[in-house]
């Protein structure tokens, strides 16, 4: 964050907007009664978030929340006025047999890179806008009320959302955590508690990602309440920043004379480089004069994939096509990295920490992979990488580039 100018809207093309959420479901319920949805409208360079908390909990609440976010995000995208959108949503929600109302809260975030952000809220805790650790008030805010639903007041805010800023939105499961069970929190954690916690985390880790911050807030809300999750917990964080770039080098170049240039692509800093493939690692060893070191302990605990190696000052090295295949299936099925074998987990965790992922692909085919004795089909590197790119873009909103050698 240190390299961000305070108001860098002029360089909007260089910016990346990270949008992430963390959720915990109320203990004993099979479905989360909150829903969070993200949408990027590439053509307009526009980024939308909808967070909704459905009335009650479990499946019924989930249906209300999911219907609300699904409709709200489409209305936002189509520039339907908020009041009209709210009325359609409220008129559409199924009525709860017990409570005789149909209700779901929402927080909507709408931002065009280079412009101002609009936030609309109904029933949720007020959003938090942080510039570093300082809270930023909206440029202006006003209330709108529907004639059909006079008790449903919507707060609309215009927000000066700049490079380095974060917006935090959450359901009341976060702000009311601890309520009724903690003597020191008579009214729960409250918005002020979330604000203080977020400031403290950012002070300690100024570059904390939206992913890590949303998870930290949701986890803290969970920890505050002893004896399990008393209400669904959802926290969404939006973070506007210069993109964190990661490079994955995989496969030897088709022409050997390109090896040196190919290897130079690995000079981006050790936290941002993965070499996937034995020959790839060998090329980097030879061209960059580094050694791939594999710890013996990693050999035993690799969890079904070849072990991971480290190249001092350059990055990490893994096996190629088996590891990439495992990364692909985790990304397509949106499995959490923690449960994957060591090498796949390392790649996935790096991918999650970065915003733009650049693949540097050598196109030479490894003939030994065609050995009929190999007990499983090995897919072609190029096609696996293309599918990884598609999954990263679709499921994780990453920017991906593919460069061939």
């Amino acid at each position, binding site marked *: 964050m240190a390299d961000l100018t305070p108001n860098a809207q002029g360089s909007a093309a260089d910016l990346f907007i990270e949008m992430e959420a963390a959720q915990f479901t109320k203990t004993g319920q099979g479905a989360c009664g909150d829903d969070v949805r993200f949408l990027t409208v590439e053509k307009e360079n526009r980024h939308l978030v909808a967070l909704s908390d459905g009335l009650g909990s479990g499946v019924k609440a989930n249906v209300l929340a999911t219907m609300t976010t699904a409709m709200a995000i489409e209305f936002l995208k189509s520039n339907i006025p908020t009041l009209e959108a709210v009325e359609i949503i409220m008129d559409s929600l199924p009525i709860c047999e017990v409570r005789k109302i149909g209700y779901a809260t929402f927080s909507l975030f709408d931002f065009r890179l280079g412009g101002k952000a609009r936030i609309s809220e109904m029933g949720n805790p007020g959003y938090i806008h942080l510039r570093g650790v300082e809270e930023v008030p909206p440029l202006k805010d006003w209330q709108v009320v529907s004639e059909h639903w006079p008790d449903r007041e919507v707060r609309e805010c215009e927000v000066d959302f700049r490079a380095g800023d974060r917006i935090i939105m959450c359901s009341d499961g976060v702000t009311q955590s601890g309520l009724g069970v903690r003597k020191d929190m008579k009214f729960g954690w409250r918005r002020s508690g979330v604000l203080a916690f977020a400031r403290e985390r950012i002070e300690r880790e100024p570059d904390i990602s939206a992913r890590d911050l949303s998870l930290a807030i949701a986890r803290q809300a969970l920890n505050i309440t002893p004896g399990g999750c008393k209400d669904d917990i959802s926290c969404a964080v939006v973070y506007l920043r210069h993109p964190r770039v990661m490079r994955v080098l995989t496969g030897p170049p088709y022409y050997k004379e390109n090896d040196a240039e190919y290897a130079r692509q690995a000079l981006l800093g050790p936290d941002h480089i993965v070499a996937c493939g034995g*020959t790839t690692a060998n090329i980097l060893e030879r061209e960059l004069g580094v050694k791939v070191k594999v710890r013996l302990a990693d050999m*035993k605990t690799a969890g079904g994939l070849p*072990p991971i190696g480290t190249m001092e000052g350059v990055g990490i090295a893994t096996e190629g096509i088996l590891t990439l295949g495992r990364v692909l299936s985790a990304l397509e099925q949106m499995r959490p990295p923690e449960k994957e074998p060591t090498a796949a987990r390392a790649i996935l965790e790096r991918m999650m920490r970065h915003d733009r992922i650049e693949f540097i692909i050598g196109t030479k085919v490894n003939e030994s*992979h065609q050995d009929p004795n190999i007990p499983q089909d*090995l897919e072609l590197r190029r096609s696996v990488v293309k599918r990884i790119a598609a999954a990263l873009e679709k499921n994780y909103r990453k920017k991906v580039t593919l460069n061939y050698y």
Partner: protein
Amino acid sequence: MEKVKVEICCGTACYLLGAANMMDIEDKLPAEWSGKVEIEAKPCLELCERENLGGAPYVRINDTEVMAQATPDKLLTRIGELLGGAA
């Protein structure tokens, strides 16, 4: 021989054709060999693309000797021979 250096290829072909079974080879070394065997995993020894070497998985011993179609038993036997039957 005082010490034996073993490099296990962890390239895709070797791993699938049997190197996976050698990842815990260190645990199988007899206690008497302690300090006499150095085991390393290598990203790829690039032997599988050469012809007439005998087939993956490959292990390289003392920088020069290539063991083709390596198995834990074959490897342990060979290490024992090189250490002069020290097992």
